[in-house]
């Protein structure tokens, strides 16, 4: 969903350059939500049966590959290029820019490896000790939180005194709280 919204926002911004991205996304949500609510209210939910299981699986697989391919350059710290192009293009560019990888790769690949290690360890342990399967499941679901916290700690330790020139790319400033409520959203959607 998110990657689709991103694509839509980019395409719409090409047509209407003066509209902010978040307004486009919100407008899209309102209109799509209205359509879906309408279909639901007239009790036509059965139209989802026109979407076969193969279409769902193909969509899931395709978009997973798409998103993963788009994230690999970031994980390796490669030089910036357009990761929103078609997936095959992104994969080719990723390979082409391999020589530009930076120390980010160390943070990225180890994080990925750690996630898979924790998960397989938990699966193995749950099989060995079926009575604690639930515990291992929750450890497994918390692995993302653990890995993020762990690497944030490393990152903080490394970069605390060099915030302006970090050793590897950081998420950066996240605005506190929520954005101002857009009072003119309706007007901007339809005009």
């Amino acid at each position, binding site marked *: 969903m998110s990657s689709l919204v991103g694509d839509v926002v980019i395409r719409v911004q090409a047509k209407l350059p003066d509209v902010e991205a978040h307004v486009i996304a919100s407008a899209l949500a309102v209109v799509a*939500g209205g359509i879906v609510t309408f279909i639901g209210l007239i009790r036509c939910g059965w139209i*989802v049966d026109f979407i076969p299981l193969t279409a769902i699986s*193909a969509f899931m*697989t395709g*978009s*997973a590959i798409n998103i993963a391919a788009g994230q690999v350059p*970031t994980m390796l710290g490669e030089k910036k290029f357009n990761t929103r192009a078609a*997936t095959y293009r992104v994969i080719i560019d990723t390979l082409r820019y391999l020589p530009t990888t930076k120390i980010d790769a160390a943070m990225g690949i180890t994080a990925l490896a750690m996630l898979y290690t924790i998960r397989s360890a938990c699966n193995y342990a749950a099989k060995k000790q079926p009575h604690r399967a639930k515990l291992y499941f929750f450890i497994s679901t918390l692995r993302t939180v653990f890995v993020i916290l762990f690497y944030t700690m490393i990152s903080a330790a490394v970069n605390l005194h060099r915030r302006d020139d970090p050793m590897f790319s950081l*998420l950066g400033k996240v605005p506190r709280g929520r954005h101002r409520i*857009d009072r003119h959203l309706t007007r901007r959607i339809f005009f």
Partner: protein
Amino acid sequence: MVRAFASELPATVIVLLIEHIAISKSFGRVNNYTIDPSQEMVAIGVTNLLGPFLGAYPATGSFSRTAIKSKAGVRTPLAGMITAVLVLLAIYALPAVFFFIPNSSLAGVIIHAVLDLITPPNTVYQFWRVSPIEAIIFFIGVIVTIFSTIENGIYCTICVSAAVLLFRVVKARGQFLGRVKIHSVVGDHLLDSDGKYGSPSRAIPPLSDDTDTAYRNVFLPINHHDGSNPEIEVEQPYPGIFIYRFSEGFNYPNANHYTDYLVHTIFKQTRRTNLQSYPKPGDRPWNDPGPRKGEEEDRSHLPILRAIILDFSSVNNVDVTSIQNLIDVRNQLDQYAAPEPVQWHFAHINNRWTKRALASAGFGYPTPVSQNGFRRWKPIFSVAEIGGGESAALAETRNREREARQARLKADDLESGHGHVQTTEREGNGMEGGSESNNSADDLQRELSDSKVYHKGRRVALVHGINRPLFHIDLTSALQSAIANIQEIDAHKEASLAEA
């Protein structure tokens, strides 16, 4: 702005639905409840309708959160509030920490999360085993997604799937059935010793208990395209009788395809009754190739066409086109088999509307004979047991009694939908059988009570209306009726020949 993204809306809506419905369905299956897609759509729609006024962007179901909540034992939507409070806390308390999150680690987490969504190869192999063409559709979808966009991938898979479905419906081919005698086998013990093969799964229950239960008739495709044992000899039911089963409904896209195959096969396996049907060469339609010069094959050994039994078990509804097609074929075959009209029997009609449509096209009733206007017709009706010790429950009996009472009230008009067609037709042909069908349900009940079935101490009722003797409950009774009438006609003919 709507105009700017109007072309993106279908994909957005589909993705919104796909993710949400896929998640809710799979967890409904895990936790044993059914979902109402309309209700889910209202929920996700209202979320997206109201959220943006607080700064939200398009939202849909989330697999990971749903999985965690499902395992954590969440039962009500209240859990959403707790999640919301936690998210709000994080937004206000933690931005300082977020600053140090390395982009590359975050990318690793995202990759790890999405790779689980890839359909595993053994599931794809499962697709392949269930339906190879759908595995191909799956790959088409993935490849289009990779080389084009996600939207195109979605449109592509949905359209190709729909096209395959339509193609199957359009190119559906009927099957000619033959009769096989089936014995049931319990363990290694044959219920009757001389039967060799048993396939209980395809068995059609016998007509009634008082027929011989040593074997029963089932009908299998003559060409064994259903995968049944090719060593079983499926016998043509009777020379000149064809049993034809529709495979995927009978509607306007495929009506022509079905009947073409029917007529083609019949022409191949039977002969014309009147060989000199085209007295002059010019009378033959130009698009009928006819026999080649000097290669006129001898078809005299082939039977003539007597009856066609249509198995409607896979047909729910018919439409004007398909019925018109059937009427055309009837006229064509009547000409082919002249002077004797072809009998059309129908079995397993599932739907009142279908019965009504067929009746209004003049089916279900013996074809009137034009010249002498007189023919013996031997209707065979199917009766069902009601009440009695060993059969239906008491409630069912009461139900039937009430229905019978209603039927008495309606008197002659058993099939209320086409009562008037039936009477007009009946006036048209003065048949002996007609007088029998003119009896009301009461008379029939009286008649039945005199029959041998009644003496066994059972109560019986008709399954279908007596005004349509050619609509049968199953193929066995249809075949019985067809054979009985062919023999009747033959006997009648012989008798009149002897008289002459």
